[in-house]
């Protein structure tokens, strides 16, 4: 029997509680005809009983499961020989891991000693006891809750209000979880970054022109100085984002203008969804499109022109990223262009302006703030994009404005810093957190500005 089964049993009990509570409420007023005498509908009494049955039991089960492993671990350690108990924490952790693996029948590192066997048996016993205890406690709590809820059911009892408030607290709980998770992630990134800045000065990080995060493991190792200047990464990021925007803004904007101002209803009905499908293509697909099709194409054509194009170029990544972003720009712009009131078009056309003059001189200026907002959102998307650049832009942190060379971006470096086996407290690994924090701050600012601009724009036309 496992916890899953226990939860299933609990759910079964809750269903039973629902029926019992509902039945009782109906019986108390003498069958379905007397429902008017009840304060709430019978189903609310059912829900109320089910909540009494399930909620406390589930809470206890949750607490039990989250506390049990720590407690068991402490008990196992307390039972270990003195020599093992006094090991440094990291090694002690390894021993405990081995014991757990042994208990679960997994592969163990190193020899299995008699003490280990004993500890593993002890561990196993403790787990079984704990589980048995949890089943007893949880099930009896559920039954107790059921009977309490069942007893509380009476015609005057305001079950609806109780259920509503439980639902409200459930929603509050969910949103709290969402907020605190985000907050937790941000804080953990922040603290790790602070640890990084204890090792590498923040000025060197922000303004350094060199990025080579390989740290020397041995004293005499060459070429692994560990330079953490972030400028080349941001230059690369901005270069690629710039190329992407140069592709996406004109194409996206013009297709939005065509779709909203010129295209017939029937064409728009299938062209717009088609364009938005572009946004649904997984970025990894764009990535290999960039790496396998666009990059070689650019290199070969560059060679024809006598240009020296590296096979992983900023241009390839930027072009493909631009294509990926087109639907963002076009659908957002389409929305704001459609929001420009028809009366503006009438005024302009009525004075003898042509269609394109109206678009250029009235509609675009009126829609501009909204379009800018859309573009800023697209930029923050471009800066945060990883897959395409990992595959098409390369890893070398060149500080260059030449789009034909390979560059690297912040996100790519975060990936490479954390891929593979890493020590968790070397500056190299911690640098990923600092990069992440910086990236987060930049996109945050971009998004706030963009949303502000878009909202301002909405207000302009009621």
């Amino acid at each position: 029997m496992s916890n899953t089964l226990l939860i299933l049993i609990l759910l079964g009990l809750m269903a039973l509680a629902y029926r019992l509570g509902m039945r009782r409420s109906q019986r108390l007023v003498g069958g379905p005809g007397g429902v008017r005498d009840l304060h709430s509908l019978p189903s609310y009494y059912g829900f109320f009983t089910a909540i009494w049955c399930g909620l406390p039991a589930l809470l206890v089960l949750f607490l039990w499961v989250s506390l049990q492993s720590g407690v068991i671990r402490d008990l196992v350690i307390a039972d270990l020989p003195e020599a093992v108990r006094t090991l440094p924490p990291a090694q002690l952790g390894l021993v405990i891991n081995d014991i757990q693996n042994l208990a679960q029948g997994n592969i163990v590192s190193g020899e299995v000693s008699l003490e280990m066997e004993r500890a593993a048996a002890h561990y196993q016993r403790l787990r079984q006891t704990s589980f048995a205890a949890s089943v007893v406690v949880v099930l009896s709590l559920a039954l107790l809750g059921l009977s309490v809820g069942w007893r509380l059911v009476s015609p005057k009892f305001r079950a609806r209000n109780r259920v509503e408030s439980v639902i409200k607290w459930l929603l509050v709980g969910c949103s709290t979880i969402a907020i605190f998770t985000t907050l937790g992630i941000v804080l953990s990134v922040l603290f790790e970054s602070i640890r990084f800045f204890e090792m590498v000065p923040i000025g060197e990080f922000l303004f350094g022109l060199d990025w080579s995060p390989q740290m020397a493991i041995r004293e005499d190792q060459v070429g692994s100085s560990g330079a953490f200047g972030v400028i080349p990464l941001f230059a690369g990021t901005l270069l690629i984002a710039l190329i992407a925007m140069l592709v996406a803004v004109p194409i996206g904007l013009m297709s939005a203008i065509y779709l909203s101002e010129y295209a017939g209803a029937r064409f728009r009905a299938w062209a717009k969804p088609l364009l938005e499908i572009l946004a649904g293509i997984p970025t990894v697909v764009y990535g290999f499109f960039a790496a396998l099709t666009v990059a070689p194409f650019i290199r070969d054509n560059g060679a024809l022109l006598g240009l020296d194009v590296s096979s992983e170029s900023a241009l390839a990544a930027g072009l493909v990223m631009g294509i990926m972003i087109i639907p963002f720009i076009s659908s957002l712009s389409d929305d704001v262009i459609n929001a420009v009131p028809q009366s503006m078009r009438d005024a302009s056309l009525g004075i003898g302006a042509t269609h394109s003059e109206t678009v250029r001189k009235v509609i675009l200026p009126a829609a501009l703030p909204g379009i800018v907002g859309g573009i800023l959102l697209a930029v923050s998307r471009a800066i945060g994009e990883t897959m395409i650049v990992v595959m098409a832009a390369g890893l070398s942190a060149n500080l260059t404005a030449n789009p034909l060379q390979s560059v690297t971006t912040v996100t790519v470096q975060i990936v490479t810093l954390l891929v593979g086996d890493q020590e968790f407290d070397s500056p190299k690994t911690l640098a990923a957190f600092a990069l992440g924090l910086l990236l987060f701050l930049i996109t945050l600012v971009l998004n706030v500005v963009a949303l502000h601009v878009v909202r301002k724009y909405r207000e302009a036309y009621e």
Partner: protein
Amino acid sequence: MLSITPDTVALGAARKGVITAGFSPVADDARAINGTVGDITSADPRMTARNVNVYYGDKLAINNVSLDIGVNEVIAMIGPSGCGKSTFLRCLNRMNDTIDICRVEGEIRLDDQDIYDSGLDVVPLRAQVGMVFQKPNPFPKSIYDNVAYGPRIHGLTSNKNDLDEVVEQALLKAGLWDEVKDRLDEVGTGLSGGQQQRLCIARTIAVAPEVILMDEPCSALDPIATARIEELIDELREQYTIAIVTHSMQQAARVSQRTAYFHLGELVEVGKTDDIFTTPRHRLTEDYITGRFG
């Protein structure tokens, strides 16, 4: 029940004399072409519409309407809502072209030029026949740029001084100059409703049109702003031909010389404004102006 305003009461009193004098729904001798009662022609026509039909898709919105619009006259178009007043007005500068499903048949001439001729360009036409809309619709640009919009589009001026002059003249004629001359670079949408509407009139005047079409220009304005616009219409009549759609019969009576009454897409009766409001000859016109429906 009836909503009888002072004006209609006065008109009703005048009409009673007509009834006792033997009122008949349609005087036979006055039955003009196309079933319209009254004289559709004008001695000195600026625009002439003949046998105009307008369809939205398959739906007939204007049925066989013929009407002259005379030089330096204000012609009012009245009728219950949905009867096709706006539709007819929008035919006169081909604004209906902007509605995909709209189709116009018949003949409309401006100074003897067929405006639906396939060789005719709507750009100069709409400069000659300007339009003021129901809801004031200044561009979200400065007051100056609003008025300068048309002259710039049509390349009417070659330098800044000329443009300044055109803007000032247009604002003067629209009676707005004194109120805005010190803040020409503020946005036009920041003005009051009545000022916005006069700004829109200035914007229309700035391209020196011959005809100004106004579609219920006061329906979004308060009585004082309305009175201001009505005065303005009276002044503008000296230089322009004006066709105004209005839902207010008092307004039609105050500003127009001729009145056309539309009903369900047909032009029922046309005549001198004084005659229409004192001695309507068609039963439908009479019902409408006495407030029996509308």
